[in-house]
């Protein structure tokens, strides 16, 4: 599903943000990418989202080569991904329903489909009764659920989560992680970038550790070791 072969990314001079990384993720896997700030995990996510281009190496995601991908193709490619962020990135001037529906409008789904699909996915993330609320009326955990619903509404192959619990308290973080696990069990490949040690260690998933741009360990049912 995700294949990185000898991928490097450098911003100008100095150490590359990602340094000769090799990573292979199968369909349906759940993977944590951990490491301290500046270890290159955010850059990795940006490379996968084609927000950045790699300097060298080869990235293949869901059967698509990202190097040399035409600008036009990028939008279509991103529809295969669901993305959530630490800061949720919801539209403040729209309610929960509209925020989720937005993702479907963007890819040109007809209204009839949207009306059916949005309540479904809100149900999945446990927000069925809050569809009229605005982001500012919701707790952090609820906002992240909205973001998750938006990421999932188009049934992506892969869910990328960039520090999804970064702004949440431990209990809410656990809830969100449980939700991610559930999503994974329904068949979506999930890649979570985080530095939340407790969560990583409690979930017994594959853990890829990055340090100064390099992947220094990759363990099945691994733990988060401080480098």
């Amino acid at each position, binding site marked *: 599903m995700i294949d990185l072969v000898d991928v490097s990314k450098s911003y100008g001079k100095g150490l590359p943000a990602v340094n000769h990384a090799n990573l292979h993720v199968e369909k349906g896997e759940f993977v944590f990418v951990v490491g301290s700030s500046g270890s290159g995990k955010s850059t990795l996510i940006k490379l996968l989202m084609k927000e950045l281009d790699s300097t060298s190496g080869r990235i293949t995601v869901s059967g698509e080569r990202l190097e040399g991908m035409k*600008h036009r193709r990028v*939008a279509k490619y991103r*529809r295969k991904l669901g993305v959530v962020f630490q800061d949720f*990135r919801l539209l403040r001037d729209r309610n929960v329903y509209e925020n989720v529906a937005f993702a479907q409008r963007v890819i040109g*789904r*007809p209204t009839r489909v949207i009306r059916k699909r949005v309540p479904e996915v809100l149900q999945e993330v446990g927000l069925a009764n809050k569809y009229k609320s605005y982001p500012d009326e919701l707790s952090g955990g609820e906002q992240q659920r909205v973001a998750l619903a938006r990421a999932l509404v*188009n049934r992506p192959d892969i869910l990328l989560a960039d520090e999804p619990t970064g702004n949440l308290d431990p209990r809410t973080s656990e809830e969100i992680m449980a939700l991610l696990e559930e999503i994974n069990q329904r068949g979506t490949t999930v890649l979570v970038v985080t530095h939340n040690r407790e969560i990583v260690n409690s979930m017994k998933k594959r853990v890829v550790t990055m340090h100064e741009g390099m992947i220094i360990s990759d363990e099945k049912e691994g733990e988060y070791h401080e480098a």
Partner: protein
Amino acid sequence: MRPSTIWYTLKQGIKNIRRNWMFSIASIITMAACIFLVGTFYSIVNNINNITRKVEQEVPVTVFFDEGTTQEEIDEIGELLKARPEVARVEFESADEAWEKFREDYFQGSDAAEGFKDDNPLVNSANYQVYLKEIERQNQLIAYIQGLDHVRDINQSEQAARTLGSFNKLVSYASIAIIAILVLISIFLISNTISVGISVRKEEIGIMKLIGATDNFVRAPFLLEGMVLGLIGAAIPLITLYYVYTSVVEYILNQFNVLTGIVDFIPVSTIYQVLLPLGIALGIGIGLIGSFMTTKKHLKV
């Protein structure tokens, strides 16, 4: 495009306009001024052209003949003149007719002319009055006539038409310059309005891109915004000008009774056959160019 996408684009476009209404109004006003001027100059230039054409057709070149030229020779010259491509029509005036006309024009039925009795003082005044299709080709024709046998004199009374013609050219050039400047200002203001709209919605656009919105989907509401601004900017002056034109024509004809019959104004409906599509195309065009340039610049991933 799906209907839901069109609807979405429409709603977002209108929302943009309302969200930064001050810039929107500024662009509309500039555009309206621009198109109003286009319309005004178009009306003026066309009317002057119309009058010039009339004058051209009514001010002939007069050709006089050498003493003793026979009627056959005169007829021959007439045939040659009629064959010229720049000639609209040729009228012959015999010496008697010339005298008759002169008498009417200058003595206006008084007895002063009676002294001449049958002794026509204009005995050598038989002439051709040559009406041209276009005043510009007068010199060409005159050069030709000068080369003909039996021609004594040529009278060209082009002054009026010339003056009108060059005045029209001046108005045309001045208006093209002013309109060009206003078009540029309009494009600049539209572009400014759109870029404010883009910066206000930067976050939203970022999210759209991450979700997989195509460039066109992101761009469409802004292009629509530009087009709507252009359309409103065109509609205001076009409607205003319609009434202004009608009342100005009415006013001029009322105030200067002399002009009635001499000056013929083009009816507003004829003017609008061109001006309406022109104005709308200009408005939408300016709107589209302004917004297209801006989105192209700002909406790169």
